[in-house]
């Protein structure tokens, strides 16, 4: 029975040229547009230490202070490979830091060190170097200073890579709109009445819609994978299965959400606009448009963005792209499964506790 419903769903879904265009071209379009148009936002390369440099500016520093500076920077350079370059123009050096040409600039004065870094553009490597520098600068001078030999194995993260994942996740969120539409159409066409009367029932119909969404989402992932690999030269790394799993869970959530909204909506525009608004909001707050590192550095937003499932998805995808299965990945998996279950439970509660039967247009009209 379920196979029949799924077969019909796929047939109806794929005979619609709009749906087909959505599935095949939306990820390509979004990845292309975002990675080009928003390329400048992803200047903060997660570069290796070898490529990083820190500028310093001497300003009436005593020999003692300079000596301490050399000791600290030698240790950091030995440990990380980061180079330290002198500059004679502090303002230009600050501009270079803002433009991601350097991790930071250290102003050396008689009173000590002043480390300048970009508030929004500091890369992970730069953050680590700054932490080391501050720790060493604050250490007791009489005690021998030592730091661990740290190697950062992070890959270069540019806009193409960032938006391959985040724009794909965003376009997958829009799958919810198609599923909501598809569910609402069953009500509008009154075909839902015939399905209700049969053995399949509402549960079977909704499950088939969700599975259709998952199938379509997988097609989107394949399309994005091929496009990013062949055209943009993005290597998805060695955690491909994990990445696909995160995407499938995201599709599951968006399809469950879409189908529930489709069932409870009283009119088509409400159905479409609510899922669309939700997807847009998730996309914006989840770093699918504005990069996450920018959002994370904005007051208030830094907390709010965490309610977006796309925030966790993009966090997980960045880690997985770097070959790391960390707590971010596990959080993401738990959150997406949890949200899908929660939305389903809320729907079941509405239908059972409220004894509400989701009536068709005609029934509603008769009321």
């Amino acid at each position: 029975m379920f196979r029949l419903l799924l077969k019909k769903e796929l047939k109806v879904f794929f005979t619609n040229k709009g749906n087909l265009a959505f599935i095949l071209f939306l990820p390509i379009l979004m990845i292309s547009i975002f990675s080009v148009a928003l390329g400048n936002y992803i200047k903060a390369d997660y570069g290796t230490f070898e490529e990083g440099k820190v500028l310093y500016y001497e300003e009436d520093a005593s020999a003692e202070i300079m000596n301490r500076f050399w000791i600290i920077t030698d240790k950091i350079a030995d440990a990380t490979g980061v180079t330290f370059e002198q500059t004679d123009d502090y303002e230009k050096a600050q501009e270079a830091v803002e433009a991601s040409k350097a991790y930071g600039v250290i102003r050396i004065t008689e009173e000590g060190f002043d480390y300048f870094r970009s508030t929004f553009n500091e890369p992970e490597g730069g953050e680590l170097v700054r932490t080391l520098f501050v720790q060493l600068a604050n250490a007791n001078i009489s005690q021998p200073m030592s730091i661990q030999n740290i190697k950062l194995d992070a890959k270069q993260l540019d806009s193409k890579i960032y938006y391959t994942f985040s724009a794909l996740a965003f376009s997958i969120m829009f799958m919810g709109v198609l599923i909501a539409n598809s569910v609402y159409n069953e009500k509008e066409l009154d075909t839902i009445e015939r399905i209700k009367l049969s053995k399949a029932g509402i549960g079977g119909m909704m499950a088939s819609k969700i599975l259709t969404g998952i199938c379509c989402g997988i097609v989107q992932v394949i399309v994005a994978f091929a496009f990013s690999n062949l055209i943009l030269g993005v290597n998805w790394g060695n955690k491909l299965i994990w990445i696909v799993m995160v995407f499938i869970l995201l599709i599951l959530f968006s399809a469950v959400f879409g189908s529930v909204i489709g069932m409870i909506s009283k009119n088509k525009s409400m159905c479409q606009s609510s899922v669309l608004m939700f997807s847009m909001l998730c996309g914006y707050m989840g770093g699918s448009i504005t990069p996450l590192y920018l959002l994370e550095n904005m007051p208030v937003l830094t907390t709010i963005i965490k309610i977006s499932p796309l925030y966790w998805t993009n966090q997980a995808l960045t880690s997985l792209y770097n070959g790391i299965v960390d707590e971010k990945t596990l959080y993401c998996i738990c959150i997406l499964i949890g949200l899908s279950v929660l939305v389903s439970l809320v729907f079941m509660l509405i239908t059972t506790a409220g004894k509400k039967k989701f009536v068709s247009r005609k029934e509603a009209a008769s009321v």
Partner: protein
Amino acid sequence: MDILSIQNLKKSFKDMVAVDGLSLSIGEKEVHGILGPNGAGKSTTINCILGLLEYDSGTVSFEDGKSSKKWSKNIGYVPQDLAIYPELTPTENIQFFCSLYGFKGEELKNRTQRALEFVGLTEVKDKKAGEFSGGMKRRLNMACGIAHSPKLIIMDEPTVGIDPQSRNRILENVRALNEAGATILYTTHYMPEIEEICNKITVIDHGKVIATGTKSDIMSRMGKDTELLIEFSEGKGNIDQFVHQVSEFSDVHHIEQEKWICKIRHPKNIVMIDKIIELTIKNQLSIQNIKNQEPSLEEIFLSLTGKELRDQK
């Protein structure tokens, strides 16, 4: 034997009572018409019968006292709105809905073929339903509801908004289904359809049954008047005086004159013909045609509910 029995069915939506203690029974192989103006409770009653809507109280039981859930495979539903997928062909539509009742393989193919032939869509079986005319869509809508050979077919205004040919075709199909053994519950706003195909009628209004039975049952119970229609030869005698004199009889409830035709309504049990003939001679009129006619179902409906059926749409 009753195939469907409804006892004291009640259904309210907040403060509005949609069905108010409705009782109804439908016998096997009956074509049962339900008449009622908009808001009378027809659709709500059908949804309660189908189990699509929970009702407040009362019982709806099918053959052998079964509930709609247990008996649903025996029910075919032809909704008023087109419950078909426009993206799919008639074959795909029928196959899908029929397969929901567990049919597959050759059996499914044969049933689909038979349903297509029955509604006359074999020639367009591979075209998308979205490209069809209104009448063809209605026929497909019917085919989707009957392909699994249900014992009871519920048709909710299946001929709304279609051309006369398609309507005739659908009515022929209804008759053929009935002859093949199906019981049919039919709602419509078109009185001639009810008169043409139904052998039992239930009139409902405000969620209550106002009258039920065969057409003649209802007429004999409700229609106390009869109408005498007289057509006079043109230009002979004084028709105005005739009308005036007839209207003075106390037993005449209504007289209507249109040129040389007169309609005289009087109680069935009063013999008027002698007096009429007498006045005809007196006024030197010449009768060309005279007949006694029963009030139409529409007139009975009007007298029962105080509402015109066709005005409701």
